[in-house]
């Protein structure tokens, strides 16, 4: 039941939001819907984490072997949790942002949430594809309507990229469907299909390109920095904290279990591309003056590490990657909030035009430094746990990948610390002389994130327990 409610609440809430014309009211409504999802998820996770709540099956297209089947387990629960945690934070931290036609904006935001949760929950191939594409449509409208100057062309590029990827996946999915014993799209039937190695090899690529575009893995990443830069920050948060996880999650739930032989055959290709992407993105991040682009490139680097770790075929790498799903979501959210606060106050995101903010807004500065340190994966922060495990896994797989990938950690320290220095310290200038401190709900959003960073950095055990189910399943498949 929890699984179904998680999709229904934002879906119905989103459609209702379209009819609330009053700006304040629609903001409050959306926040209420986001909190409702959070409440349902927390209850389900803490008090009712049993089969009844985790599984939902309803008839959809019985003649064609597809049903409306949802399954919340292991890493899927973790990502659902991330989604429902992120949404209230996103709404609260962007409370002051003004949008034309706020009803449409918030309606589309909530529909996106429904789509993302659908992707994380779907346990039926066709349903998964359905949600995979559906999550994209509201985002397309959000970015194109409320984004920056070049928004239309940039968003369009993003849309076409992902659309090509998903269509290729559709072909693979239909092909797979005809190989099932009982002509069914259900996850179990698809898992049980016996494929030859050649079939696995090319099906692997049909699926992987779709996921790689979404993550994005080098060289499919070119849509990402532009889209992050041009989107309104609230949407960028959704894109980078949640939507990129769709690609990583799909690797865990669909790609590797469906084509283990394919994954083993191409592990070096995927890991190689990911590692190259990590270093490449880190180098580019150092060149950026625009805060949004900096965070965008740093995000590519982090995603690269996760996608590499998913293919190393050992427990450490898997665990690390899945924990990092959550940690990266939280941390990047924190980064975007800071960017949003700075842009709203000063009207610029250029580091060269900022400076000395820490003097007038110490709370903001402290909170940012914590988030930034987590971005560099310092010990005691949540990212350390994940990155350590991932590098450990990568090391076991092949020492050279770990060595080259390790460069990106050093580089990330360089660009992150340089950003702190340029934006927060140094002398005030004309732009930043009238800095004011952030208000209480912005503080609260950031405090929640900082708290999450430390709690998970010191006591990550609950998260380990949650994802262990998936890790065991995947390692079992490889054996």
């Amino acid at each position, binding site marked *: 039941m929890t699984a179904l409610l998680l999709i229904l609440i934002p879906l119905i809430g989103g459609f209702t939001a379209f009819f609330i014309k009053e700006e304040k009211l629609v903001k409050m409504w959306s926040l209420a819907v986001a909190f409702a999802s959070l409440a349902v998820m927390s209850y389900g996770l803490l008090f009712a984490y049993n089969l009844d709540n985790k599984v939902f099956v309803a008839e*959809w*297209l*019985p*003649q*064609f072997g597809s049903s409306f089947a949802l399954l919340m387990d292991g890493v899927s629960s973790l990502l659902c949790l991330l989604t429902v945690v992120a949404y209230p934070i996103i709404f609260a931290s962007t409370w002051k942002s003004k949008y034309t036609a706020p009803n449409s904006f918030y309606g589309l935001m909530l529909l996106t949430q429904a789509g993302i949760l659908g992707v994380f929950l779907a346990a039926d191939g066709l349903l998964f*594809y*359905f949600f995979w*594409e*559906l999550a994209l*449509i509201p985002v397309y*409208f959000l970015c*194109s*309507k409320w984004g920056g100057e070049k*928004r*239309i062309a940039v968003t*369009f590029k993003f*849309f*076409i990229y992902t*659309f*090509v990827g998903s*269509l*290729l996946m*559709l*072909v693979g999915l*239909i*092909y797979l*469907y*005809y190989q099932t014993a009982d002509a069914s799209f259900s996850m179990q039937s698809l898992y049980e299909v016996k494929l030859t190695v050649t079939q696995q090899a090319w099906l692997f690529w049909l699926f992987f390109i779709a996921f790689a575009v979404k993550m994005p893995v080098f060289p499919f990443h070119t849509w990402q920095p532009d889209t992050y830069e041009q989107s309104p920050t609230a949407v960028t948060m959704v894109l980078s904290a949640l939507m990129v996880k769709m690609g990583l999650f799909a690797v865990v739930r669909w790609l590797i279990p469906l084509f283990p032989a394919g994954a083993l055959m191409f592990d070096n290709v995927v890991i190689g591309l990911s590692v190259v992407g990590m270093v490449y993105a880190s180098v580019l991040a150092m060149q950026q003056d625009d805060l949004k682009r900096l965070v965008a490139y740093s995000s590519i680097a982090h995603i690269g590490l996760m996608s590499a770790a998913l293919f190393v075929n050992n427990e450490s790498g898997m665990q690390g990657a899945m924990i990092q799903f959550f940690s990266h979501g939280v941390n990047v959210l924190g980064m975007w909030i800071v960017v949003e606060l700075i842009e709203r106050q000063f009207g610029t995101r250029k580091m060269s035009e900022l400076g000395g903010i820490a003097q007038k807004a110490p709370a903001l500065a402290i909170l940012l430094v914590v988030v930034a340190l987590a971005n560099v994966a310092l010990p005691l922060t949540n990212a350390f746990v994940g990155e350590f495990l991932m590098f450990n896994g990568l090391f076991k797989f092949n020492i050279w990948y770990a060595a080259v990938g390790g460069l990106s950690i050093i580089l990330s320290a360089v660009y992150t610390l340089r950003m702190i220095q340029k934006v927060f310290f140094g002398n005030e200038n004309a732009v930043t002389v009238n800095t004011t401190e952030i208000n209480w709900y912005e503080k609260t959003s950031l405090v929640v994130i900082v708290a999450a960073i430390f709690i998970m950095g010191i006591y990550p055990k609950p998260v380990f327990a949650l994802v262990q189910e998936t890790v065991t399943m995947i390692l079992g498949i490889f054996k």
Partner: protein
Amino acid sequence: MNLILISALWGIVMMFSGLFIANKSTAKTIAVVGALVLLAGNLFDLSGKMIIDSNFNGMLQYDKFGLLFLTVIVLALLFYFLLSGKAIQEVGNHSYEYFALMFFIMSGIGLVALFNNLLILFIGIEIVSIPLYILTGADKKNLKGNEAALKYFLMGAFSTGIMLMGIAFLYGATGSFQVDKLNLTANDNFTIFLVIGVVMIMISLAFKVSAAPFHFWTPDVYDGAPTVFTSFMASIVKAAVFIGFLNLFMNGFGTITGKWQLSIAIITALTLFIGNITAVYQQSVKRMLAYSSIAQAGFMMFAIFAVNDMSKQGLLLYAAAYCLATIGIFAVLVKMKDFTIEGFNGLAKKEPLIALVVTVCFLSLAGIPLTAGFFAKYFVLAAAIKTGTYLWLVIFAVLMAAVSVYYYFRVIQAMYFKEGNSEMAETSSGFKGLLVAVAVLIILLGVAPNLLLNWLILY
């Protein structure tokens, strides 16, 4: 049988009402009533109650698929009359005759959907084609329309000749006009007569559904004809010819797929390529839709390529999805002042509801989930993948579908994200209500395609 009879009779009724009723606007009402009567007749057909219960020595066959297909077509006709009836009356002075011609076309469509004899197919196609030549040139003062009509007539007559020739060769080779008595088997000695016969029929049918490389008439004719009639040609007529195509290749040539599948695959690939790539360069929405209709025909060709049970489901759903979306878009296009894509700039601000419906229609044409177009594409592609051969064709097709997103979304972008002052004729609230009904149907079929397909599978 009911549908064929009633539509022919109603066509005559329409013609004579034109003589006796001076008021032009009564024509739409009579036509809508006629479409409703057709629907009733078709439903009686489906339940087996016919006015003349005969299959004319096996020349017609009342299979469920054909009849169900006609239900979809008649429903599309009803929507078309309701949405565009007024625009039809405004084309020229002969509003009753336009409607009458369309009823005659429906009669031909009935024959094409239910034929079991090659001569009936030929007669059906001719009954569909000849009124279309007239409708294309209906706007007598428009030079482009005249040119289009003449072009269409000459090329159409030529292709009909090829079809007749093909049928004659086929008769020479097999000794039968009956589709179910052709008795072709893959091990036959293929006489040159048979090969020429099949190829010629294939070419002429490909011409009628505007598949490349026999598509050259399409952009000029669709662009030159009065916009309301383009809507009719691009939706109802095109879908209807496809069912004739599928019936013939499934029931007649289904046993020798190996001999013609490659040719159809090449035609499909060419159609997809030319339709999609050329559509990208169009500035006029009307011309873009003409090329898009070629591209969509490419997807429908997959049903013919595969000839299996999924083909039937796919084509049925495709016809419904494609007709709904095309009729919806054209109904709005007729009201626009400026047919270029810039003409749609800022429509969402002025007419949010209409813009939303047009968006749903375009999303459906592009095949985005939650719209009927997604499942339409899904089923025809699934049909092709089921054959297990020519997977490159399917992958090529989805890449082309991605290209199609480019030009469909340009209109959506114009409506929602560009500033502008698009001018549109006044629309009544009834018109808007109908448009919303079209959008709701598209979404309904996009969530639950089995609402339609169950009729094919279960009953």
